[in-house]
């Protein structure tokens, strides 16, 4: 009997110890990012950026005294893994919200799971379908594909280009982009004369360039991918002596591709968030302060150039933090807090969410950029 008593006391003590951190207050947040695998250039910076936000907040005492516990799961861009992580985070870890996944494909797979589990999901996938049709618990931070396409076509109209070739990588991003490009082209009176898809692991596109170059009517090429082929196509085109303008998607917003393409990257025109040209923005720009802070914090901590992709993770975490400040540990309140965010400056643009718009960005969140002397600069026409 005495032994049992001791056991009970010990047990109670153990329970107290377990319970202590909970009483001190932690907000459990899940994250699913493709830290490894084919989309690691997205997931890596996204996970690091989110962690950076969390560390900074916890260092300053947390949100209203509550620390954030960020549980990062590496999906390797595999939708099946994303599904099981989403279930695990919602059902076992009982997180308040999930940020990520990195890719559109994964996001679409867990859209329903988050909605049914009534857990806010802030995706970092680019595709429009993630928030259209709107699911009340699902949000996303990257700009819509269609904005990027419209930006490019508007620029082409100014340059007097109306016959183009489209090439895209065989990833979800590439396919979605190719579809948007061909769909929106007639609205701007642009004809797509050739549309080709290449493998995401392509290492040389000389033959493709030779084929397209043989069609003398093509006035410009649009490449839509997030793979190293972005640099390869530029190189192969210039090596073949083909001088038509090369447009790229917002996937080109990574200085490493410019370094890889070297001299061939000069003059590439592409739409991107303003992070890449943060220094040259006027002081009146509402994003400028945020962009410079992110760039400085990220680059001094991780010793690598900040990218717009990392910015999607940074935005997702910051939006969630703003919602946690208002909603506390209540998923429903967090959700409505996100929906009511207005004029929230982030890396991708200034977010204004509404019950109908769960992306919160408009076409002006993109600027047209070009490469000059190995650096990104604002494109101001020829």
């Amino acid at each position, binding site marked *: 009997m005495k032994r049992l008593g001791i056991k009970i006391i010990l047990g109670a003590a153990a329970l107290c110890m377990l319970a202590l951190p909970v009483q001190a207050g932690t907000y459990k947040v899940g994250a699913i990012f493709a830290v*490894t695998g*084919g989309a*690691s*250039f997205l997931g*890596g910076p996204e996970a690091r950026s989110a962690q950076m936000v969390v560390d900074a907040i916890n260092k300053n005492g947390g949100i209203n005294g509550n620390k954030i516990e960020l549980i990062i799961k590496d999906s390797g861009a595999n939708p099946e893994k994303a599904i099981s992580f989403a279930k695990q985070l919602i059902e076992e870890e009982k997180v308040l919200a999930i940020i990520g996944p990195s890719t559109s494909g994964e996001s679409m797979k867990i859209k329903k799971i988050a909605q049914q589990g009534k857990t806010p999901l802030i995706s970092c996938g680019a595709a429009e379908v993630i928030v259209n049709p709107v699911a009340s618990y699902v949000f996303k931070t990257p700009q819509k594909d269609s904005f990027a396409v419209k930006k490019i076509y508007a620029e082409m109209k100014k340059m007097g280009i109306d016959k183009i070739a489209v*090439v895209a990588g*065989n990833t979800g991003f590439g396919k979605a982009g190719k579809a948007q490009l061909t769909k929106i082209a007639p609205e701007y009176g642009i004809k797509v004369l050739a549309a*080709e*898809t*290449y*493998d995401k*692991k392509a*290492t*040389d596109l*000389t*033959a*493709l360039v*030779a*084929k397209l170059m*043989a069609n003398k009517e093509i006035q410009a090429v649009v490449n839509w991918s997030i793979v*190293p082929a972005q*640099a*390869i196509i*530029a*190189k192969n085109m*210039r*090596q*073949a*002596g083909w001088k038509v303008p090369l447009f790229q998607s917002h996937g080109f917003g990574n200085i*490493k*591709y410019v370094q*890889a*393409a*070297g*001299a*061939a*990257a000069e003059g590439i025109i592409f739409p991107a968030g303003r992070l890449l040209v943060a220094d040259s923005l006027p002081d009146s720009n509402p994003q400028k302060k945020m962009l410079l802070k992110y760039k400085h914090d990220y680059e001094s901590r991780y010793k*690598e150039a900040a990218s717009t992709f990392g910015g999607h993770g940074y935005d997702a975490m910051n939006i969630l933090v703003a919602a946690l400040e208002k909603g506390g540990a209540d998923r429903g309140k967090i959700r409505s807090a996100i929906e009511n965010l207005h004029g929230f400056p982030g890396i991708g643009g200034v977010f204004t969410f509404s019950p109908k718009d769960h992306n919160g960005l408009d076409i002006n969140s993109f600027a047209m950029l070009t490469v000059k002397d190995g650096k990104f600069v604002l494109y101001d026409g020829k």
Partner: protein
Amino acid sequence: MTQALFFQYLFAGISYGVIYAIVAIGFNIIYNTTGIINFAQGEFVMLGGMISISLLHYFPLPVAIALAVVITMLVGALIEIIFIRWLDSPSVLRMIIITIGLSILIREVALHIWGESIRSLPYFIGNELTTVSIGPVRISPQVFWVVGVCGIMVLGLSLFFKMTSVGREMRACSANRTAAILCGINTRNMVTLSFMLSAGIGALAGCVMSPITYTQYDCGTSLAIKGFTVAILGGLGNSMGAVAAGILLGIIEAYSVAFVPLAFQDAISITILLIILFVRPHGIFGSSAAARLKEF
């Protein structure tokens, strides 16, 4: 098809093909001494590229490449000594599973060391825009480097295997291991040597092709598949056959772009692999009688 376009495809095909051929030769060397396929061959190519890029911060280009080749050879030796040497007459299947496991291991280690970003060596001559004109065709001088290095390697290897006693000993191990042991050949050392040799060749290939194809932690896998196709196509163990088959596959891929959408390019090489495996498993240039005597 215009004449200019014809030659443009031809040269594009040759530059793809030579890269495949170098990877295939790496497969062949290990196959020739051990009778197994080393599926970590593509990772040697990646390591060569990655290490030389890292060393470039401290050394001039030729030294960085030479060091990268030596370091990769050491990695190759280390892998053989740790994972393969102590196995007592392992089955083919077991060896294949081990090498596949190794390729995953090397890739993950590379991911931790170099991260997920793409890197490349600078062009050996000129920059991204420099081209040489041959008639109507413009080619990057780097393609000549790849072709030249490949040519020298094939020549050197066939001389090595035919003329030197070490080379002959290595071939003896593959032909009949028991007989080789009876002749006093240390077969285990020969296997280690073959891993070093193929690692070195892979690494050198990784360096010369890096400016063209770029290097990323997982670039080895797709190269290994193409290289394997070429090795089979040319007849396993046959270096000259690998070069011919490599260029053949490269040219087929390049011309295919003219007739079918580019998306089918890889499907074509896989289809060829399957057809060859069904119809002529000993390859275009191999002999079926010799193939029957082999374990795999």
